[in-house]
């Protein structure tokens, strides 16, 4: 049955929401990022109950719900657990142009994986199990991008 709606020109209103935030980084991640910024070092924290080492550090052990008060400096080397070559462009979201590689890297001395970029290598050459090391930026601001990427260990 014809409806009055059939003849309506439906309009589209282009909008955008832009709201500023000042997120507190908290003592756990602040310590992690200050060590990264000031000394170029990657630290994790360990559960006093199960011994699991988290990196980036967490406020609580996900299994034991314990405070993670023991801090450990990690060598910055690790193994690629999984990866993806990103082929699509998202200029606002992605800090770099595609194609680029994300990986989950199991850092030596840690029990959790860290998601970051894998660089310094042809994206087609990245493999699971590849040994990598962190490349620290020269100019650092105290956030996750102070690690430039992980590159294969020659």
């Amino acid at each position: 049955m014809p409806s009055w709606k059939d003849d309506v020109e439906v309009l589209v209103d282009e909008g955008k929401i832009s709201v500023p935030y000042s997120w507190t980084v908290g003592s756990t991640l602040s310590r992690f990022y200050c060590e990264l910024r000031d000394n170029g070092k990657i630290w994790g924290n360990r559960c006093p109950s199960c011994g699991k080492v988290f990196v980036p550090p967490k406020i609580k052990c996900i299994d034991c719900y314990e405070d993670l008060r023991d801090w450990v400096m990690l060598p910055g080397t690790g193994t690629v657990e999984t990866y993806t070559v990103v082929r699509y462009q998202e200029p606002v979201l992605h800090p770099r142009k595609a194609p680029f590689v994300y990986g989950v890297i199991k850092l030596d001395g840690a029990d959790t994986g860290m998601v970051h970029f894998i660089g310094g290598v042809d994206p087609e050459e990245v493999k699971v199990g590849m040994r990598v090391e962190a490349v620290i930026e020269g100019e650092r601001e105290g956030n996750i991008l102070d690690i430039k990427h992980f590159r294969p260990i020659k």
Partner: protein
Amino acid sequence: MRYMEKVAIIGVGMTKYDRNSPLTFAEMVFEATSKAIEDAGISKDDVDNVVTVSSDFWDGRTISTMAVTDASNAYGRDITCVEGDGTFGALYGMMRILSGTFGITIVCAHHKGTESSMNGITNCAFDPLVERKLGLDAVSSAALQARRYMEKHGLLEEQFALVSVKNHGNAMRNPRSLLPMEITVDDVMNSRKIADPLKLLDCSPVTDGACTLVLAPERQAKKLTTTKKRVWMKGVGHCTDAFRLGDRDLADTRALKKAAKRAYDMAGIVDPREEIDFAEVYDAFSYMEPLWLEGLGICDDGKGCEYLERGWFDYGGKLPVNPSGGRLSANPVQAAGLYAMAEATLQLRGKAGKHQVRGAGTALVHGINGMCGQSHCVWILGR
């Protein structure tokens, strides 16, 4: 276990899946809810509360539930919100009834994916202090999970492609579907690379849609509807894994295993393989279907693709999976799980039309929340 009152789904309403729908999301909710009330054969005045499945980010409005108050028949009643998949909205609806506080409950979900930026919004699901700055989103994180799953069990992209072939094929029988397609494994393999190992046809489409269920406590369900109409919520289980991707083994389905066990125990299911007649499983990406089927205990870990290749999950197979066409054929995020429950309800009534699964007496419906299936909700529905 002491006797617990049962809850039934007595009405369902769905809009046809769409892209760039000319309807506002409130208009879509109005359509789905009107249809569901009519389907239940009740008056709008019989309803005493509403659960909306709404997301402020997707809608671009804060307190998004309030934007669908009129459309969902909530005016003058209690309205509340679940921000997550529709399967969790239905869970909250059932809990409200079982609390004894509420009677007939509407659960409605809507999504207008084509109005905004899928990648931008799912990027905002990540910790702004860690992963968000890297630009991760639902697609790139799923790709990390797909690769981990392949590596753990020696699986191939061609095996995942078969899921896409099957589900798009199933969609050919579903008149509401967005992407009914007869395609081949080669078509999937040759589709545009998105984030390896995922190609375009491994990914679900950005979709618009709204779906509403009418839930009723046992006594009212029996008074108001016939046995042919009502479908019982026989079991439900839900469980959550770690938020941060690196804190989980992405190929480990431990949260889903727990959720499934709870749902099976509640429904009295001992052997899901034998007792479930069909399943709607959350296939936002092709690889997810076999991975979740393993978590659901339908097959052993790493064996999902093998069963798929043997035709177990085909429309005419031993345990048809996603006879509706699944999320690969239409995925209004968050509404999708509620659609799956509505689809299962039609199947159990024997009213699914061309995609009716023969002898459908017990259905499994599965929904996920969060990146890479952080959280799972498993439903057992039955006649």
